[in-house]
C-alpha cells in the first residue's frame, strides 16, 4: 500500500532524528531538538529533495528548521503534506 505524503514526511523525520512519529508536533524544531545539528539538517533536506523530487532554494534549505515549517516549505514546491 502506498504511503501518504504525511506518512512519508513523518518517516523521514523519525529516521533522521531517531524518534517515534508520535513525538513529531509543532514543538519539534531546531531549538528544541538536541540532535538537530548541521549534519541532520543536511540529511533532512537531502532526503526531502530526493523523496519528493524537488530542489529547494537556499533560503528554504536554511529555513527548514521545524517539522511544521517544513510542510509549508514543501507546499511552495507543490508538495502537499497530508
Amino acid at each position, binding site marked *: 500500500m502506498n504511503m501518504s505524503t504525511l506518512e512519508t514526511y513523518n518517516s523521514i523525520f523519525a529516521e533522521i532524528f531517531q524518534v517515534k512519529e508520535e513525538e513529531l508536533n509543532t514543538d519539534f524544531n531546531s531549538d528544541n531538538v538536541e540532535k538537530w545539528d*548541521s*549534519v541532520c539538517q543536511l540529511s533532512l533536506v537531502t532526503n526531502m529533495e530526493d523523496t519528493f523530487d524537488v530542489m529547494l532554494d*537556499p533560503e528554504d534549505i536554511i529555513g527548514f528548521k521545524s517539522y511544521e515549517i517544513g510542510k509549508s516549505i514543501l507546499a511552495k514546491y507543490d508538495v502537499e503534506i497530508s
Partner: protein
Amino acid sequence: MAKSTIKNIAISGISVALPTKKLPVTHYNKDFGEDVVERFTTTTGVKSICRSIPEQTASDLGFEAAQNLIEEKKINKEEIGILLFISQKPDFRAPASSFLIHNRLGLSKDCLCLEMNLACSGFIVALHTIKSLLKNSDAQKALLITADTSHKTLSPFDRTMIMLFGDSGSAILLEKTKNNLESHFSINSDGRRFKSIITPSGAYRNRNAPKERVVWSDGILRSDYDTHMKGMDVFEFSLTDVPKLMKTFLEELNKTPDDYDYFTLHQANSYILKQLSRKLKIPSDKIPVSLDRFGNNSSNSVPLVLADHFSNLESKELKLFMSGFGAGLSWGCADLTINSDVILPIIYTDAYDKLN
C-alpha cells in the same frame, strides 16, 4: 570587497603531501553508531580522511611538500625571496612556523618570511597576498605553503566535525614571467561572524579555561580548547554569501562557466558543492571532487584537488575558477590559468621535524 588583477606572476609548481594513514569514516561506527556515520557519508560525501600521527605538525607536511617541489622542479633556493605559510596549527606560540620551514628548507636570509592564520579561504587569500608581494619586490620566486592538521583541536566526540576534516600540506611555487598572464581575485571578510568557527582557548584570551570537556547545548562533549563550528551558520554562509560573491565575480569579469575548464572549489561537503553547482549553473563535471577520499582539508582543499585530479594529465593549460570560504568569516574567488605539467603527484609521508 577587495578586488585585484595581478599580471605576469605564474604558478610554476604545485606539490601536495598527505599523511600515510587513511582512515575510513566507518572507523567511527563504534563511537557514533552505524546509522549516524552512514548518514554523515550520504550527506557530506566523505568516506575517508588522511590523519597525521601525533608528532607530525602542519609545518612538517608543508615542509615535505616544499622539499619535494624543490627537488622535483630543481629550484634554486637562493631565488626564493618570499615564503608565506598558511595554517591554523602552528608548531609553537612563537616564533611563526614559517621560520621553521625557512630553516629546514635552507632558504636565503634575503627572504621575507610570513605566516597567516586562515582556514578554508586560506589558499585564495594567500595566493592573492603572495602574488601581490612578489609583484612589488625584487624577488624572482616565492613559495606559498598551506597546511593543516585540523583534527588536533577537535573533540573526538564531535560527530559533526571529527569525521569531516583531513590533514595535508601543499607547496606552491610562484615566479615572475614575461608571458602575458593575468589572474583576478575578489575577497570578502566578515569579522562580525568570528564566532562561527572558533577555538576559544589555547592562546591568550581565555587562559584559564577548564580543560575538562563538558556537554554543550548540542549534546556534544567539548572544552574551549576544541574548535567549535556553528554548523547551521556556516551552512547558511556557504549557501548565500559564497555563491553571491562567485556570481558577482563572474559578472565583473564578464565570464560564464563556459569560459572555464574547471571550478576548483573548497571541499566543504558534497551537498554544498552540489548547491554551488546548481546556483551558478556550473556543470557538475566541471567541479572536481576530492573530499570523498580526503575530506575537508581547510586551506589545502584547492591544492589537493589540483594534485588529485590534474597531476597526471598531459601538458594542458587549465582555465580555473577557484573559491575558498570559511573561518573568519572569510571567502574569496580567483580566476587564473595553470599549466597541468607544473602539478606534481601527491606524496605520502609521516616524516616530522625531530628538532635536532
